[in-house]
């Protein structure tokens, strides 16, 4: 049995407001597949579940259509709904024990649907109920008890037994594993998978990303009542297309992800539709997104346009004006004007030589908006060169560069400053990166002065003070007048970061920004950079020799050796299943700097793989030919090796 949800909109009406729970949702449930509906509170996911069974309260206004094999649910009579409820479609609600009548016995409640729907005699029904319960691990002695006598895990099993008693074709589960012990969790998961294998269509409603990723076949990401993306479950961490999906993946403490928790800037709790009186006496409906600190005047969502825009890291002005529909993108469907996460920077086969030395072999790289990319390698690996080319500081000998879709070389020629504004650079040695004749204020204000971004003195001053407080530096007058040598390294580096951020760039390139700092200071600065990245939605290109640092802050890692990229991929993949022998060596050396016994005499001008000299899997081929790019199973993981480790 197929479930087709088309254009479903649900609003809960209060006196003069309406709470918009769902907005034009389109989704399909297919037999033999588990679809996970992922969303945070206020996303409307429980409302969606309930609307499939026609369980919405009277004050809910429902538009659109929900069809179970052609039978329309929306607006159907209670009588016709009662016929299919539980028999063809059943739901496991949240809140465990609250779903059971405290004064009826367990066995009675499980047997009840059988008696009511199929007219079975009490004896037969109880027998069948007892069987079901036993299958769920509830012995007959427990079955005759009352709900308050059972533990949380047992209750969940009972609810499952009850839901499955009529063998429905469609199963809806609302947070089925929340608050359960590990054993019950795995039991419940097995049952759900079993149900799927029996050919049921399963809708799994949850905010638990791990659960969704592990159990479901498809995911639908719900935000404030709209589906932002639908994708195959395995793509959740590896290849999210929508900024919200990416951000959510980052926010979830999972055993698999390495990067520190992010979060999404801003807040959004739910959507409200008001009716406002206009001057001529008519009523005008308009909607808000209600969040913390949002008042009636500033909490307005754009009248049209993208719902996620206020919190998005890559919003463009268009996003507030044009409405966005869900569009196909390969195996995904995405609701984004920019077609999903946009590419911030793209480098195509850039290379650079210094005289005889090939500092950088032909290398391609693309950075997605809002991600943190770490370039890891030893000294001389070419990472700084690559980063500076990316920043627009160095010109490559060959290759093309695109920044936000525009050719960089063109751009630089025409109006460099407007590009410079969008890129902030933080250097390795803060003490040298600033002039000792400049005061703190001067240092920070310099980019603004150079780029002539702002005219008004007051505006400039405000901007400087704000960015100083962003990096947790004082904004007191006498601090502003201090000189560089009066500050310690940690403060200096923070100052440099402030300088890089003052022009509100979209890309920040940081070259080993914490290497020259003490470990404790390093930690603080890194943490601060991470927070800033989330707050401001920056894309970061981070250079480091320290895999440990890379692991902690990046979404993707690129490993460089002797001027070439040897492996690129999501941090999770690289750290867990590195394919290139060199990467494995780096990881094995556990964070300590790998000795810079060089990559062989002659460096990158040698043909063949630069790691051939040190590799333990080396073959004849490796010394002759530079390896082709190998695309590994999980999509965005690439390695350059003849014999990658699988």
């Amino acid at each position: 049995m197929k479930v087709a949800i088309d254009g479903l909109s649900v609003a809960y009406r209060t006196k003069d407001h309406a709470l918009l729970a769902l907005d034009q949702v389109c989704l399909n449930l297919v037999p033999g597949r588990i679809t996970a509906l992922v969303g945070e509170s206020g996303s409307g996911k429980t409302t969606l579940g309930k609307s499939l069974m026609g369980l919405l309260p009277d004050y809910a206004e429902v538009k659109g259509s929900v069809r179970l094999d052609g039978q329309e649910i929306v607006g159907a009579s209670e009588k016709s709904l009662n016929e299919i409820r539980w028999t063809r479609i059943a739901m496991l609600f949240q809140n465990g024990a609250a779903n059971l009548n405290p004064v009826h016995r367990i066995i009675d409640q499980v047997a009840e649907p059988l008696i009511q729907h199929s007219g079975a005699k009490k004896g037969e029904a109880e027998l069948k109920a007892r069987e079901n319960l036993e299958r769920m691990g509830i012995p007959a002695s427990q079955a005759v008890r009352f709900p308050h006598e059972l533990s949380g895990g047992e209750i969940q099993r009972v609810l499952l037994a009850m839901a499955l008693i009529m063998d429905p074709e469609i199963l809806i589960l609302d947070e089925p594993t929340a608050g359960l012990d590990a054993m019950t969790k795995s039991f419940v998961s097995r049952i759900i998978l079993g149900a799927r294998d029996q050919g049921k269509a399963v809708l799994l409603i949850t905010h638990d990303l791990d659960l969704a990723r592990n159990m479901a076949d498809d995911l639908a990401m719900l935000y404030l009542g709209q589906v932002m993306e639908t994708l195959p479950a395995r793509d959740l961490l590896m290849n999210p297309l929508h900024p919200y999906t990416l951000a959510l993946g980052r926010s979830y403490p999972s055993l698999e992800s390495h990067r520190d928790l992010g979060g999404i800037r801003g807040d959004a709790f739910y959507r409200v539709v008001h009716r406002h009186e206009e001057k001529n006496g008519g009523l005008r409906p308009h909607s808000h997104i209600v969040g913390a600190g949002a008042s009636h005047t500033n909490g307005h969502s754009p009248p049209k346009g993208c719902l996620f825009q206020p919190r998005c890291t890559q919003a463009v002005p268009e996003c507030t004006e044009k409405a966005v529909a869900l569009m196909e993108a390969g195996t995904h469907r995405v609701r984004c004007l920019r077609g999903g996460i946009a590419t911030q920077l793209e480098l195509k086969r850039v290379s650079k030589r210094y005289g005889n030395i090939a500092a950088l072999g032909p290398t391609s790289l693309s950075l997605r908006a809002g991600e943190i990319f770490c370039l890891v390698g030893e000294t001389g690996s070419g990472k700084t060169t690559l980063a500076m080319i990316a920043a627009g500081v160095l010109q490559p000998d060959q290759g093309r560069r695109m920044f936000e879709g525009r050719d960089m070389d063109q751009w630089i020629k025409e109006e460099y400053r407007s590009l410079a504004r969008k890129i902030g650079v933080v250097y390795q040695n803060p003490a040298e990166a600033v002039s000792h004749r400049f005061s703190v204020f001067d240092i920070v204000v310099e980019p603004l002065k150079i780029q002539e971004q702002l005219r008004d003195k007051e505006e400039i001053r405000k901007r400087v003070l704000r960015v100083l407080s962003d990096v947790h530096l004082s904004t007191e007058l006498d601090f502003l007048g201090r000189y560089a040598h009066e500050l310690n390294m940690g403060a200096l580096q923070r100052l440099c970061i402030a300088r890089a951020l003052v022009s509100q760039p979209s890309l920040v390139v940081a070259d080993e920004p914490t290497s020259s700092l003490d470990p404790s200071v390093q930690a603080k600065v890194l943490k601060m950079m991470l927070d800033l990245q989330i707050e401001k939605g920056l894309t970061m290109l981070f250079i480091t020799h320290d895999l440990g640092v890379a692991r902690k802050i990046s979404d993707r890692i690129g490993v460089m050796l002797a001027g070439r990229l040897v492996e690129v991929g999501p941090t999770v993949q690289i750290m867990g299943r590195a394919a290139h022998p060199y990467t494995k060596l780096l990881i094995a050396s556990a964070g300590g700097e790998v000795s810079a016994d060089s990559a062989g005499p002659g460096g990158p001008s040698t043909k063949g793989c630069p790691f051939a000299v040190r590799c333990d899997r080396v073959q004849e081929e490796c010394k002759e030919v530079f390896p082709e790019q190998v695309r590994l199973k999980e999509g965005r993981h690439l390695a350059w090796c003849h014999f990658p480790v699988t």
Partner: protein
Amino acid sequence: MKGNLKSMRRGHYTVAYLLAALVMIYVSYSVPRWLPGDFVTAMYSSSHVTLNAEQEAGLRAYYTQRQGFGQYLVDFFTLRWGYSYAFLTPISKLIGEALPWSLLLLGTAHLLSMVFGFLAGVEAAWRRGGVIEKAGVGSMTVIEGIPEIGTAVILLLLFALHLGWLPAAGGETAYVTHSAGQRIMDIGRHLVLPLATLFLAYLPGNFLLTRGSMVMVLKEQFIETARAKGLPPLRIRYAHAARNALLPMVTRFGLRIAFMLTGALVVETIYAYPGLGTLLFNAIAMRDLPLIQGIVLFSSLLVLFVNLALDFLYGWIDPRVKYAS
């Protein structure tokens, strides 16, 4: 282990009630001893009853005897409750005659008001927001505000005096011989007005309470689950919701007994219905202290017993109570 908890809790409450009973009996026992000196004369001098010297001496002896509490208890349980000087009958006999009438009146009134109040409350809550519900709640609240005295007098004036449809007083027509069937009809006719009064007095409370707790129960999660199971509305309403709404009503009944007793007392008196109430009223009018004592003690213990029974009933209805710590 759980079984022990159950009996422990039972024991707990039963102890409270036994203590209360003992206290009552003791108070009844010792009250006369608190009375000032020659109250007997002072009391009876202003009453309608004239005692001859023998009766007066007997009364005084009764009140000054230094009887032990133990003996008093024994006397109590063997129904030796003393002698009424106003009626010249043993007290136990008087109470024995009046009790069935009171039970008939109160029992029927409570039963009817609970059944109707409950059903009406359940149905009203189910139809929340409709005109019927609002009208029901409104009218019930108004009736709740009218004290039994008021209702009794109004009904008396209207139906007995003005329209003459029903008798104004008594439990049955005196000095007439009836067949069994005729007697029942006669008692019935006399029962109507006091019954109606008490019914109207008890109905609103039951209705409003049931409705209130139904409204709350209907909001519970398990009701939604029941709906999701595709169960017929009638079953959801009664087997699931009303069953849970029953609980507060049982609790409340116990708490309201004091209130209800007073009302019943007054109503019986107004209709001169030959139950314990009228008996008490007459005893007070005639200053028959032993009789007053006897009735008070007896009815208090009866109430205690009812409360105890209610407690057990509640435990039986609500499975959670047994194991609550």
